[in-house]
């Protein structure tokens, strides 16, 4: 038996715990936790739609509602130039990336708080919560995707061969969405105010993004800046150009958007990793 002496008042500085960010190790951790991501997504999904009458069909409701509202009202007052594309199709193509973004940020953003019970008791890479939130939002978007097909059939409009640009646009879109989701989820833990502000910001965001209107509404000289500030704008515009109009995406706005997306993702990841050490203390 050994009785220790009263410890000093504070730890010697050389013992201080230092946070190290190692990208390789983090990615390996994440890969090992992929089963957990799958289980979490499943759990989210089941819990989300359990005991609802419509079930998974609820995923279709938000974009379709917005499409109807925009078609009935917004178009009348704003006089949007769709370059001959039926307005419902035009706005739905914008609504899909937007609902993915807003679903991801609102679900993933609150995921750490919602799972505080787990966060406090079991170890696994913390990123998986916002990532699982984003994946659930992605599945919602996939469920809403067939409506686009129906719209194509209905309007007699066909997708153009330039649709091959979709993967590139999708990559930029996912990077930006994931970055914002990660950052929001980490910051919400410390600033609970954001929890209340988030829905408001997202509601406002749909009008700050060319979902109901066209990117042409922005003066040409400001478009590059706009694309950098809101990478969703050139992405949505890119989808419209590539899928509906048969044109190559407008690089002068897409490239600033792509650079900004990468920067957001990187900054969000570093922020997340730094705030991560305190999650269990605060949540």
């Amino acid at each position, binding site marked *: *038996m*050994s*009785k*220790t002496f*009263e*410890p*000093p008042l*504070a*730890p*010697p500085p050389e*013992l*201080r*715990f230092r*946070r190290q960010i190692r990208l390789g190790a983090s990615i390996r951790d994440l890969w*090992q*936790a992929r*089963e*957990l991501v*799958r*289980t*979490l997504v499943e*759990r989210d999904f*089941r*819990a989300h739609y*359990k005991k609802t009458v419509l079930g998974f069909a609820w995923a279709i409701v938000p974009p379709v509602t917005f499409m109807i509202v925009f078609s009935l009202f917004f178009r009348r007052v704003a006089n949007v130039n769709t370059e001959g594309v039926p307005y419902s199709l035009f706005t739905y193509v914008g609504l899909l990336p937007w609902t993915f973004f807003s679903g991801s940020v609102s679900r993933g953003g609150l995921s750490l708080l919602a799972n505080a*019970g*787990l*966060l*406090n*008791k*079991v*170890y*696994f890479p913390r990123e998986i919560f916002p990532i699982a939130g984003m994946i659930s939002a992605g599945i919602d978007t996939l469920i809403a995707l067939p409506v686009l097909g129906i719209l194509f059939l209905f309007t007699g409009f066909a997708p153009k061969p330039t649709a091959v640009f979709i993967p590139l646009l999708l990559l930029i879109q996912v990077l930006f969405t994931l970055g914002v989701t990660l950052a929001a989820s980490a910051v919400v833990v*410390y*600033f*609970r*105010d954001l929890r209340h502000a988030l829905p408001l910001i997202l509601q406002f965001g749909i009008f700050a993004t060319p979902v109901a209107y066209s990117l042409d509404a922005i003066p040409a000289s400001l478009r590059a800046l706009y694309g950098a500030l809101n990478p969703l704008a050139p992405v949505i515009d890119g989808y419209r150009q590539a899928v509906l109009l048969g044109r190559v995406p407008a690089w002068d706005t897409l490239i600033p958007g792509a650079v900004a997306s990468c920067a957001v993702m990187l900054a969000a990841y570093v922020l997340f990793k730094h705030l991560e*050490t*305190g999650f*269990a*203390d*605060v949540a």
Partner: protein
Amino acid sequence: MSRKGTVSAVRIWKRFAVDHRRRLLRDQIGGLSRGLRGGGDRDWRWALRDVTLRVEPGEAVGIVGANGSGKSTFLKILTQVMYPYAGRVEVHGRVAALIELRAGIHPDLSGRENVYLYGSLVGMRRAEVVRQFDDIVEFSELSEAIDRQVKFYSSGMQMRLAFSVAAILQPDVLLVDEVLAVGDAAFQQKCLDRMQTLLSQGTTLVFVSHDLAAVEAISSRGMWLQNGAVEVIGPVRDVLGAYRHRIEELASSSGQASGIVRLKETSIKAPDGAEIRTQDPLEVRFVVENPDPRSVRLYLGVSEGPATPIFVVRRDMHLGTGESKVQCTIRSLPLPRGRYYLWAGIFDVKGRELLPWHPAAEFDARGPDLDSPPRGVVRLAPVHVDATWRLGAE
């Protein structure tokens, strides 16, 4: 590279902000300006101070201590849920932690779905869970309830589910924090048996509990945390002995037992004046001060520290006004070597308290050590004691 199951926590420090509201935005802004002016000190409270613990594979360590002494925080740092302020933690191998009941259990999902969720939380592949699913359900004895939503489970059932998954998957390190207490007696014993099996298969166990008998049954080493610092670390019996002693000291210092009747001049010794020895007679003498004549029931008990006695002797008697001498002789002391406490309490015939049950004196017994039971078997001390009594007026 250390072997799987090694736990090493070296000089761990952890602190918490005293006031959590300071984390809100307005306080952050205030704190920021204070920080810019150079005096950004917040009030911190140390939850762990310089705690070092190394556990080898297959070893079991029990952690005891008062509420708020840092036991759970220490376990959370071992699971890497929390990050230490200073120090180094290394845990090798697959870790399963049972910290609080609902860890990893989602109330809206069924028991079956939760088994998969919990399995992936502790790092099991889905195929592994599928293979062992039947074993898990069988161990938990929840086969009828497995498709019911967990929110309709009792707390004991939730614990069964969580423990079964953690126990069947054979982790390298198992951390258990005071969750077994909600299980019924039979399942608690089953859990202890299972932990024993895991230990013999090389699983490392760190066990936090207020059930000192269970800690003693399962652990070989003990660590007593007091205000976040290690008070005693060593063989489990020594640690628990020291801990029980402290509980006793606290019990006797917190409130002098006061009642209508008072106890004076308590003495415990062997009748021949020699040291108190196992199997030898023990003589307890004291004086009772009583304001009015009444019939009372006097209880004496001996404990290892906490208020739960190893044995109790009782005597109904009539007390006159003033002081009465009471002597109780235990013919053969059924206690092994150690430090013990004499508890006393006096009640009237209707059970009303005249003198509360309180520790009245302590004594050391000499003699052989108690034979310890096999590991994993909880030792209680049900003993029958013959006693003779003699009463007389002062």
